[in-house]
């Protein structure tokens, strides 16, 4: 197996492929280049990115690249899939909460920045779009953040490209796309981080042809006027979600669905979130609550490594 680690999109990335050919190695070395191109299209933290330019040109039709188009469509699907709990129109709410720059640059705890409310975000349905011309029209009050969806999409896209060379896995900052079984028929072992013990895993999952992602408020949070604030916005209120879940890990058919589902469950809270997971036969989840207790959904057991 060959693997490559690098940084992109503000996170650690990893690509692994079960192959030893020179072609596979060349493809692996191209992965950071792919991510750089995607980040330049999709980042809201780069003023010259395509997304930033789109956000500055509200009220007028803007022709966008295939990458931005694809991720926008993935975000719309995620919104439908989660009943509106995950929407790309939360940028103003995120900015109002203080997440207005790359996380490592956010004002230190205790900063005197004023708390402001951006209101409830509108659904992505208010955005005009034309598939024939690949054009988007943002209403003046709507600005997009493709954050986690972009990472899940990038992981899936990179894995699809690498799969020509062998079984593969791509981890985009915790949003992981897992390909077919490894040689010998083994699934891919993927750890689930323990939020209370950094550097250790709660479980090891055995996955193939699946996506897995974790949404949490254990890392991306900051103090705002004496209140701990995090980056998971509840579109029903426009505020950081009030939830009893610290981290939610979801296994789904794709990395984009896993990312969206993990965020939706975290917003819903443990009781509603678990019901939502169990209602969809394609989903399984592992939740860690603020009080340290852990909950597994009905179908999670099939992915947990256990001695045979």
């Amino acid at each position, binding site marked *: 197996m060959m693997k490559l680690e690098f940084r992109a999109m503000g996170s650690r990335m990893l690509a692994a492929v079960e192959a030893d050919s020179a072609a596979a190695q060349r493809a692996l070395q191209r992965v950071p280049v792919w991510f750089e191109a995607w980040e330049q299209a999709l980042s809201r933290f780069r003023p010259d990115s395509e997304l930033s330019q789109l956000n500055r040109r509200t009220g007028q039709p803007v022709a966008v690249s295939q990458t931005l188009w694809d991720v926008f469509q993935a975000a719309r699907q995620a919104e439908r899939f989660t009943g509106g709990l995950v929407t790309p129109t939360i940028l103003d709410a995120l900015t109002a909460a203080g997440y207005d720059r790359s996380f*490592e640059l956010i004002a230190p705890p205790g900063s005197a920045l004023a708390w402001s409310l951006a209101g409830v975000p509108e659904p992505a349905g208010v955005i005009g779009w034309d598939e024939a011309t690949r054009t988007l029209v943002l209403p003046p009050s709507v600005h997009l953040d493709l954050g986690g969806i972009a990472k899940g999409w990038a992981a899936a896209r990179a894995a699809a490209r690498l799969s020509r060379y062998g079984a593969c896995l791509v981890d985009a900052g915790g949003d992981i796309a897992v390909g077919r079984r490894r040689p010998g028929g083994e699934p891919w072992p993927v750890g689930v981080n323990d939020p209370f013990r950094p550097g250790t895993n709660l479980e090891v999952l055995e996955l193939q042809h699946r996506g897995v992602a974790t949404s949490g408020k254990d890392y991306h949070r900051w103090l705002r006027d004496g209140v701990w604030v995090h980056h998971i916005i509840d579109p029903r209120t426009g505020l950081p979600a009030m939830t009893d879940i610290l981290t939610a890990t979801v296994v789904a058919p794709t990395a984009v669905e896993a990312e969206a589902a993990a965020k939706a469950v975290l917003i819903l809270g443990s009781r509603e979130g678990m019901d939502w997971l169990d209602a969809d036969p394609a989903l399984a989840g592992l939740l860690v609550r603020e009080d340290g207790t852990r909950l597994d959904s009905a179908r999670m057991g099939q992915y947990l490594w256990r001695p045979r």
Partner: protein
Amino acid sequence: MQNRSKFRWLDAQLVIAALAVTGSLVLWNVFAAAARKPVFGPASVRMAERLYKRLGTGVIATQTATALPGATPDMSTPALTGIHLPPIHLLLGGKAPPAQVVVVNSSASVSGGGASNPPPAPPPPVTSTGSSHP
């Protein structure tokens, strides 16, 4: 008088030699850093892979990869066991080290054992999922 004059000339020689060495290092740092090339070429990668296959164990670090413009390099070093190629560190400035392709032993997973064996451990994860870490 003559001895004092000879002594001064030796001092001057030492100063000139020291300046020459320092100047060479500075010029080397300025001009050689930009022309650095990957330490391992394709031939050494193939040799490492052959060695890896023949011995069937261990981990071999190979081949540098394309640098990612604008990205902060991940400075973490994979835990290597078995065969080690010599670590290469260029400390004369220039760009940050690029990402590395790492070849790992794919048969490292553990399967069940007999009654006298220790309890089976989970296979080492290839990666792990958690909240996005900055």
